[in-house]
């Protein structure tokens, strides 16, 4: 018996509804399906949770309130009060990544946050948005961001390019962190899952490892959504306050 399933098979995108518009392949894939699902589930949770507004919240209302307050507090702590106007975006970002990660863990699920292009697109949206906010708020003064304070002029020739480069590296580290965590976890689950069928009765061992790994992956799914959002918050703080 060979390993029938390749551990990386799960990351393949499958075209569910082929759509071609003017030579561009815009097919509806399983990744698109799960993105739609993430949006629907996250929206349903918040909308249904906010429908009944009891003073003593029920279960659904609690979930909606806790997630709202979690992000609101994160913004207050990391960006400050000016950050509140960006709450809708950051909340959406958090819920989208969180439900992308969590839905990927469901059986027959597909983890779209395990695709570098998805996380990179998200990170680039954050990066461009934050840069534009910085430029709109501060105009040319935004460029002073790249000039370290109190450094002799000769050193500036070296330091400014380094600062600019580390600024442009941000979307890459942001996207690779999320993508690598999700992909590594799901590959590990698949590898141990592959052993289960091969080993027969001894397959109970890798199966128990998988059960434990699922809990770890649940933790990682929530944590990475949190890390993604808090890093976006920190970038936003830089843009608003220029330190």
């Amino acid at each position, binding site marked *: 018996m060979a390993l029938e399933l390749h551990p990386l098979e799960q990351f393949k995108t499958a075209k569910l509804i082929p759509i071609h518009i003017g030579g561009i392949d815009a097919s509806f894939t399983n990744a698109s399906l799960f993105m739609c699902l993430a949006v629907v589930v996250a929206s349903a949770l918040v909308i249904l949770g906010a429908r009944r507004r009891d003073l003593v919240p029920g279960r659904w209302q609690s979930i909606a309130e806790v997630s709202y307050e979690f992000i609101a507090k994160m913004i207050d*702590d*990391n960006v400050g009060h000016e950050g509140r106007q960006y709450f809708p975006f950051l909340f959406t970002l958090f819920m989208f990544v969180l439900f992308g990660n969590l839905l990927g863990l469901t059986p027959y699920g597909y983890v779209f946050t395990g695709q570098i292009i998805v996380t990179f697109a998200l990170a680039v949206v954050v990066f461009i948005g934050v840069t534009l906010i910085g430029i709109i708020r501060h105009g040319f003064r935004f460029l002073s*961001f*790249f*000039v*370290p*304070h109190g*450094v002799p002029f000769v050193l500036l020739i*070296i330091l400014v*390019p*380094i*600062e600019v*480069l*580390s*600024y*442009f*590296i*941000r979307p*890459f*580290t942001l996207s*690779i*962190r999320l993508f*690598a*965590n999700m992909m590594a976890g799901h590959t590990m689950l698949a590898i141990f899952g592959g052993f289960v069928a091969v080993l027969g009765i001894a397959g109970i061992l890798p199966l128990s490892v998988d059960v434990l790994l699922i809990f*770890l992956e649940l*933790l*990682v799914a929530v*944590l*990475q959504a*949190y*890390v993604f959002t*808090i*890093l976006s918050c*920190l*970038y936003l703080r*830089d843009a608003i306050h220029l*330190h």
Partner: protein
Amino acid sequence: MDEHEKSDPLRELGERLDKARRAQQRPERAAPSEDTSSALAYGLRVGLELVVAIVVAVLIGWALDKWLGTRPWGMIGFFFLGVAAGMVNVYRTVRGLGMAVGYRRDRKTGTEANWDEDED
């Protein structure tokens, strides 16, 4: 003797309050080596910071070379720039200066130090 007995419950309460406060307060910044899984994550993060900086810099240098026809020089220059930027980023991460570009000291390093440990 009388006085001692009177102050005892108060002192006891104070001690209990102190203990509860200490238990609630999270340690300012635990050493990353305290437990292996977080140390591994910390190491991975530092590695990611360094490697991504170099890779991105080399790619930029390569693209500039292709565009301007300055074959090896852009790539060589940007390689060293990438190493420098990577090291600066690693330094910032380790010192808990956060992801901020620039060297101005951050007043709110506490929050950033916390999320440092929180990452898996």
